[in-house]
């Protein structure tokens, strides 16, 4: 039964999408009139509405006949930007070349992002809760429909509009600027460009897809932030900036000295050892600077969770706002494993951080301890922390306490739909705790 429900929902969505592509707004009004006149004009002795029905059928028939014969031979090139931001409209160019002997006119262009319907497994995942199992019959169908809509919304990267194309003469090219608003962060992919020709009356559209692949990265939506005070002690960073986030040969060193127990084997200067007969190591310029941690909690309800999406947006906003001219910013999170990405002081770029945030996924099966261990391992390097949590439970409070014990100032942002608790435990004198509610993130951040 579940599979039948899934198939019905999938095909009805496909049908709605097909109708949206093939029938214009005028076509929608046409069908509204057609059905209305069919119902009201059933009795031709009582009303004259049947005359309207007959006229509409004749118009539709002629329009439909013109839709049967439409072929295109068009080459397409798409020029996309590398990055865009979720929720912000962007422009890009499309160059269409008519390879046909005859010119084409009255065409429209539709460039829809690639979309795949949820699989049956994804659909049935959420229907295993006791509450969902109890809702049978009509309510059960409504629950399924609502869940299907949410799954579609999670996957939909953007909706394209149709744009009229100027007359395309034979063997000529035409450039057109298209607009698209990406709905969510991630990778936005294209597989084809669709050319359509409305019938003479503008009611129906016949379509011809042309293969043209492309993709771009949609960065998370960002909020304006007030200046954040990240006061923290500058700390000694072993091996300087160059080794802050990379390994390899790009080491800046001051001099060579004798090996001391505890020196990392990687700093051994082998040539000097060979010459002198005793171990020698490279000595680096001592670097003291601020290193801020941006901790992102990815142990949430799962992919598409509203709180997690807002958390990523807040992290992206902070990554762009925190000035890293003289400091470094470490993004700490857990995906398949624990990750730390560093930006600032020409080590890494903000864009790279945002690109990483664009593809992050939440998971309900992750253990918060992994994130705690990652942060604990870097405590000696961090000057201050901004932590973005999805909950304020014991493990998270303990992490903040651990940082507080090390005298590392922590700004904790909890993004949750729950009510603010009476006592926000775990925040000390040097630590600040703020609750942010999805839908009111902007206001919450402005109050920081």
């Amino acid at each position, binding site marked *: 039964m579940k599979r039948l429900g899934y198939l019905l929902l999938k095909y009805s969505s496909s049908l709605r999408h097909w109708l949206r592509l093939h029938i214009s707004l005028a076509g929608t009004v046409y069908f509204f009139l057609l059905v209305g006149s069919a119902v009201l004009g059933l*009795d031709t002795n009582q*009303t004259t509405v*049947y*005359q309207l029905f*007959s*006229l509409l059928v004749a*118009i539709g028939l002629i329009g439909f006949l013109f839709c049967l014969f439409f072929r295109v031979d068009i080459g397409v090139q798409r020029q996309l930007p590398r990055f865009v931001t979720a929720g912000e409209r962007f422009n890009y160019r499309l160059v269409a070349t008519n390879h046909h002997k005859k010119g084409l006119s009255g065409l429209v262009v539709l460039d829809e992002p690639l979309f795949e319907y949820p699989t049956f497994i994804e659909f049935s995942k959420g229907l295993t809760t006791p509450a969902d199992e109890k809702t049978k019959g009509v309510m059960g169908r409504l629950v399924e429909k609502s869940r299907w809509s949410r799954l579609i919304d999670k996957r939909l990267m953007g909706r394209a509009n149709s744009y009229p194309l100027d007359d395309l003469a034979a063997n000529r090219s035409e450039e057109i600027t298209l607009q698209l608003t990406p709905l969510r962060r991630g990778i936005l992919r294209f597989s084809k460009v669709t050319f359509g020709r409305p019938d*003479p*009356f*503008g009611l129906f559209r016949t379509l011809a897809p042309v293969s043209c692949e492309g993709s771009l990265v949609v960065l998370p939506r960002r909020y304006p932030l007030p200046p954040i005070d990240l006061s923290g002690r500058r700390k000694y960073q072993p091996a300087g900036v160059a080794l802050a986030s990379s390994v390899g040969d790009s080491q800046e060193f001051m001099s060579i000295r004798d090996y001391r127990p505890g020196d990392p084997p990687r700093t051994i200067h082998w040539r000097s050892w060979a010459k002198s007969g005793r171990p020698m190591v490279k000595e680096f310029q001592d670097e003291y600077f601020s290193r801020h941690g941006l901790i992102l909690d990815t142990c949430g309800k799962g992919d598409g969770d509203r709180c997690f999406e807002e958390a990523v947006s807040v992290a992206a906003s902070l990554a762009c706002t925190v000035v890293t001219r003289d400091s470094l910013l470490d993004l700490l999170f857990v995906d398949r494993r624990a990750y730390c990405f560093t930006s600032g002081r020409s080590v890494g770029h903000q864009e790279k951080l945002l690109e990483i945030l664009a593809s992050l996924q939440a998971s309900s099966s992750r253990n918060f301890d992994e994130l705690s261990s990652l942060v604990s391992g870097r405590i000696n390097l961090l000057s201050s922390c901004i932590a973005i949590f999805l909950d304020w439970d014991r493990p998270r409070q303990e992490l903040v306490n651990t940082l507080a014990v090390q005298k590392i100032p922590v700004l904790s942002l909890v993004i949750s739909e729950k009510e603010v608790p009476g006592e926000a435990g775990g925040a000390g004198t040097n630590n600040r705790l703020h609750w942010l509610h999805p839908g009111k993130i902007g206001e919450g951040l402005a109050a920081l």
Partner: protein
Amino acid sequence: MKIPPFLIAAALLFWGWQVDLLLPAITVALVVEIAPRVKMRWQLSGHNYSRLVDLSALLFLGLLVFAVFTAEGSGSFLRVFAWLPLVMLPVFLAQLYGSRETIPLSALFLVIRKRSKKSGIDPGGVDVAPFYFAFCLLSSGIGNDRNIMFFFGLFGLLGWALWMVRNRGFAPWLWLLLFGAAGVLGYAGQIGLHQLHTIVEEKVLEVMGYSGAGDEDPFQ
């Protein structure tokens, strides 16, 4: 899809002429056509739009109930639908004189209303002007006199509306030729439909009469 100026006024006057409600039609047409020329706008919230849609729905239900209890046959019941342009007027005026250029989808559909209330996301709106035009055309064929002017009126109004949304890739003369052909086909079709209905009705009555319902004397 932008409705051209005066098209809805023309549809309203056509409707008023056909169903003998010319005075209300002229009044509504004036109110509709001065809207773009008037700067005053009502600041309507989503809640206000929802209430106006509910008002139209209630008016329609009220008319239906009235028709059920007072109608003497299907013809007088159908007469309720002749009032559609007036029943839908609150919604259309909300669009013309409201702060938004469209009617919110959440006001028109209960399901979307509940979903958007829960999520706080605006689901967008729809331009109801083309649908109001459709209501005028549909209502004009109810309770009117049967004459050829009705078909010509429909032909003219539909032609005007479709001319604005035509595909400009086709030459105007071709469009006019095709629309003319649709008119001829449509006219022949409506004659055929009426004849077909008459034939079917006669056959049904024949069959019903043949099945024994009526004047048979049970004692013979």
